[in-house]
């Protein structure tokens, strides 16, 4: 599959690139790069307004992205955002502001990415709502504590698959429990949609946020899927062009569809690029790749443990192929720079999940995250790279 991705032709510090930072962002196949380049070369115009040919092509290209999203994830609504972070902030501003009041409870987890903690802390400051966090015990959500925390909850926000550990949470159970108390539920699916097919309506969440760039699409674009009930409860928070029906000096009326939440000129080329990525990924058997990558990750995990590393990722059968680890004495930054010197890209640090790091008792980890184009040879290079680091450092 690597031949679909031009970036693998380059050398990093004189070595072939082994890219294992996919939980941060994935590489782009040539068809995505070509689609965006083709858009700017031949169809560039603004969308939804002008009647000229280019405007029509641009609108079709951008709206094709929305149609593909609705179709792929079985959703009646797909609001295009700048990414997962903006999608979650949109729920906080447009649904939270008008449906949550002083004393209302929002349930979060200790496993959340900062983008699913900070918007709620900001809302809590504005509206005096109560935030309850589900603890993580031995890398898993404490579901007994969740049942208790649910009492009186208006909204539950949970990460579907952890960016740090790769753990896939039991979202089906969590959604059922949240629904039983009448709470709305938001899923952070940024790390989920790249690895598994999700039927949004069947899963039953009210909101689902994710980004294009973690599934071979462009950066700067993502989506919020919303069911019809929750959609009707949302008020627009960003005003401007494209989201209105009429504007007079006395007041305005708004669009009734997703455009109501997409003020201003949208990310048109990115929409075209994402549509190409969705088309490309629709031909990929995610389930088969998930199995393959998990098996590579599992073998990396045992090799790292044999070499004295602590591995935090449990790598259960449904988890994403993410291996987060530390060495007892080597600093993660040294590790990552010495791997980079060999052309191997991994991530270090707190992975935008400081509360989870606190829980794990570490300030940061080294994370190798795999995606569709990674193979056994990448694992071999990675492990021999690790050995070279150990030779000089341990």
């Amino acid at each position: 599959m690597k031949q679909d991705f031009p970036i693998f032709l380059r050398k990093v510090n004189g070595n072939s690139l082994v890219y294992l930072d996919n939980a941060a962002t994935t590489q782009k196949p040539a068809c995505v790069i070509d689609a965006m380049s083709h858009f700017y070369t031949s169809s560039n115009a603004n969308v939804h307004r002008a009647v000229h040919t280019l405007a029509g092509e641009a609108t079709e290209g951008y709206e094709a992205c929305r149609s593909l999203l609705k179709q792929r994830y079985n959703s009646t609504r797909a609001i295009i955002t700048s990414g997962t972070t903006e999608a979650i902030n949109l729920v906080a501003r447009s649904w939270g502001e008008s449906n949550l009041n002083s004393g209302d409870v929002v349930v979060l987890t200790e496993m959340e990415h900062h983008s699913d903690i900070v918007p709620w802390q900001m809302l809590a400051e504005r509206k005096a709502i109560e935030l309850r966090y589900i603890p993580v015990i031995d890398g898993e959500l404490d579901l007994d504590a969740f049942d208790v925390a649910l009492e009186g909850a208006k909204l539950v926000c949970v990460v579907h698959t952890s960016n740090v550990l790769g753990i896939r949470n039991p979202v089906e159970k969590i959604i059922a429990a949240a629904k039983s108390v009448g709470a709305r539920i938001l899923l952070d699916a940024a790390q989920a949609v790249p690895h598994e097919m999700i039927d949004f309506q069947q899963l039953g969440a009210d909101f689902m946020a994710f980004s294009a760039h973690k599934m071979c699409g462009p950066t700067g674009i993502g989506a919020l899927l919303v069911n019809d009930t929750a959609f009707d409860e949302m008020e627009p928070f960003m005003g401007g062009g494209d989201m209105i029906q009429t504007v007079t000096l006395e007041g305005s009326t708004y669009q009734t569809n997703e455009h109501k939440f997409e003020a201003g000129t949208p990310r048109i080329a990115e929409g075209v690029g994402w549509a190409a990525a969705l088309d490309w990924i629709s031909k990929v058997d995610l389930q088969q790749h998930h199995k393959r990558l998990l098996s590579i990750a599992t073998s990396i995990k045992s090799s790292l443990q044999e070499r004295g590393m602590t591995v935090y990722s449990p790598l259960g059968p449904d988890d994403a192929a993410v291996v987060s680890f530390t060495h007892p004495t080597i600093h993660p930054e040294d590790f990552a720079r010495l791997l980079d010197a060999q052309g191997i890209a991994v991530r270090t640090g707190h992975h935008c999940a400081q509360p989870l790091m606190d829980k794990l008792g570490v300030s940061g980890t080294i994370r190798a995250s795999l995606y569709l184009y990674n193979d056994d040879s990448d694992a071999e290079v990675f492990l021999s790279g690790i050995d070279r680091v150990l030779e000089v450092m341990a």
Partner: protein
Amino acid sequence: MTWPAAIQEIIDEFQEIEEQFERLEILMDFSDEVEELPIEQWTEANLVKGCQSIAHIEVELVDDAVWMKAAADAKIVQGLQGILSIAVNGSSPEDVLSLTPEFAEEAGILNSLTPSRSNGFRTMFDMVQKRVKEGIQ
């Protein structure tokens, strides 16, 4: 550009090495050059901000010469502090203030000195110069 002899020696040493991995190995050897800042003297004021690792730098003026003490938990960062120590320790404040950080780039220690990619070297360099400036005022 003409550099002071001690810096030129570092540049020459690094320029002989072709492989980035080996360059980092040599860089880590320079961590021995750091006069260590004891942990009890680590403060918010001498913390190097923006580093992934924990790093501290303290600068003193003794008999009109600059001396820095430093510490870092990552060995590569401590190696950078070692090189910085060689560049500034014992020099006059004027000489330290006339230095530019480009020697690290010329040596090939860093691919780039842009603040977001220079693993704190630029920040540490600026911090030393700022302290020297404050010290002579």
